[in-house]
């Protein structure tokens, strides 16, 4: 589903965010990416989402080579990916429900179907009672869960999450992980970046450990 083949990424300043990273993630596989901040976790996610292009090596997602993906095709590539951002990337001028509905509106779903799916997604993250509120009225953890609902609402083939449990207490973290596991069980591939090592260790999933842009460990914790 996702394949990194000897991928390096240098930024204009010269420092290497990723250097010669190779791995493969299968359909229905859930993988953690850990490492200190600045180790290259976010860069890795950005490459999969086609927000950045690799400086060397190939990134293959769902069979297509992102280095050769024309600009016009990028939106369609992103529609197959549900992304949870560390800074949530919510829109503060519209309600929680409208935020979650955004990917469906863009994909052209009928308003009725959109409403049904938005409610289902909000229910999954336990925010159904807050659908009419505006994001600024929500706590950091709640905003994060709105971001998760938005990422899963379009039933993507791939889910990327940057610190998805960063602002959540252990109980909510476990709930969110359950949601991710449900998606894994229906064949969705998940890549979760987290420096919450206790959570990572506890869950016993395959873990990619990055350090200064290099992949130093690939295995079960």
């Amino acid at each position, binding site marked *: 589903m996702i394949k990194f083949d000897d991928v390096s990424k240098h930024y204009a300043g010269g420092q290497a965010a990723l250097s010669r990273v190779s791995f493969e993630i299968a359909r229905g596989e859930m993988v953690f990416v850990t490492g200190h901040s600045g180790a290259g976790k976010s860069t890795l996610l950005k490459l999969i989402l086609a927000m950045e292009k690799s400086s060397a090596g190939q990134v293959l997602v769902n069979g297509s080579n992102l280095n050769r993906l024309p600009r016009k095709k990028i*939106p369609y590539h992103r*529609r197959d990916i549900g992304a949870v951002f560390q800074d949530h*990337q919510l*829109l503060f*001028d519209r309600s929680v429900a409208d935020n979650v509905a955004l990917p469906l509106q*863009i994909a052209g779903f009928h308003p009725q179907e959109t409403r049904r799916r938005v409610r289902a997604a909000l229910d*999954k993250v336990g925010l159904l009672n807050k659908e009419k509120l505006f994001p600024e009225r929500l706590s950091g953890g709640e905003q994060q869960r709105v971001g998760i609902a938005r990422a899963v609402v379009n039933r993507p083939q791939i889910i990327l999450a940057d610190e998805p449990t960063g602002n959540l207490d252990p109980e909510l973290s476990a709930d969110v992980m359950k949601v991710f596991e*449900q998606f894994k069980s229906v064949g969705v591939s998940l890549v979760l970046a987290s420096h919450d090592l206790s959570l990572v260790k506890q869950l016993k999933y395959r873990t990619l450990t990055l350090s200064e842009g290099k992949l130093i460990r690939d295995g079960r914790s």
Partner: protein
Amino acid sequence: MTRTSQGHSRQKRPQTSALEKLFWQHRVVARDSLQRLLRSPLATAVTVAVIAIALLLPALLLLFQQNLGSGIAELDRSARISVYLEAGLSDAEAQEVGNHLQTWDGLLSVELISSSQALAAFSENAGLGEVLASLAENPLPATLLLVPDSADLQQLEALQAELEALPEVAVVELDRAWIARLQAIRNAVNVLGQALLIFVLLGLFAIIGNTIRLAIENRRQEIRVQKLVGATDGYIARPFLYTGFLLGSAGGVTACLLLLMLWLLLGASSRELAALYNSGFELSSLSPLSTLGLVLLGGGTGWVSALISSYRNIAAIDP
């Protein structure tokens, strides 16, 4: 945390026809664009007013030219040809020439002013009675006043040539200088109107394009997020295209209303003026077709300038 893994397969999406989908998507976007414009009424009103005034200039020239045209046509109907006969002709001979001309095509009326009538009128009007009376012979020729049924300059010139070919005719005076002058003015106004229209369109591109650029700048974060969840540039541009179209159309409608106002204001005084010239001239307003054209011109210009501006500015936002 209910509703778990049911229906994850992509085939279960309800199928609506592409046309239906496009229709309600556009309806939602159009309404949203309108609401956004109405949410900042002052800024919208100023933009619409600027567009309206810009559109008003070429529309006014068009109207001026149109009225000048109908004014010329009105005046043409009272065009005269003066035919001065040879000096030696007697009144009876002059009458004969007049009778002959009555049989010609293309003449509405033929009026004879005999040399004695001309002398009487001349001495009365010019106060030269004594001087003229002292002359042994009447120096004035008989004159035929012709009213042609055509106002076309070429036809009139052909008629003039035919008249001059008659042996009894000394000089044919076609009072065409002013017709030619008016037509030249009309042509100049026409060219001016077209040039102005081009300048106005360029100005509108700048005004609307800049409005759209600012709107995009204000919604930068939203566009970033839209791009991250898979929106195409076309999808993002759609509300801005509606904004441009709505602003332009509203400008067109306002320009039409301003024109109507001017027409009502000027109508009375123009009728007075026409009455002074014994003319049935009526100040004409824009036809319904031209009104529609003006609105569509505004809307179309708004749409095109939004298209150019939004694609450039949206492509520049990279998540």
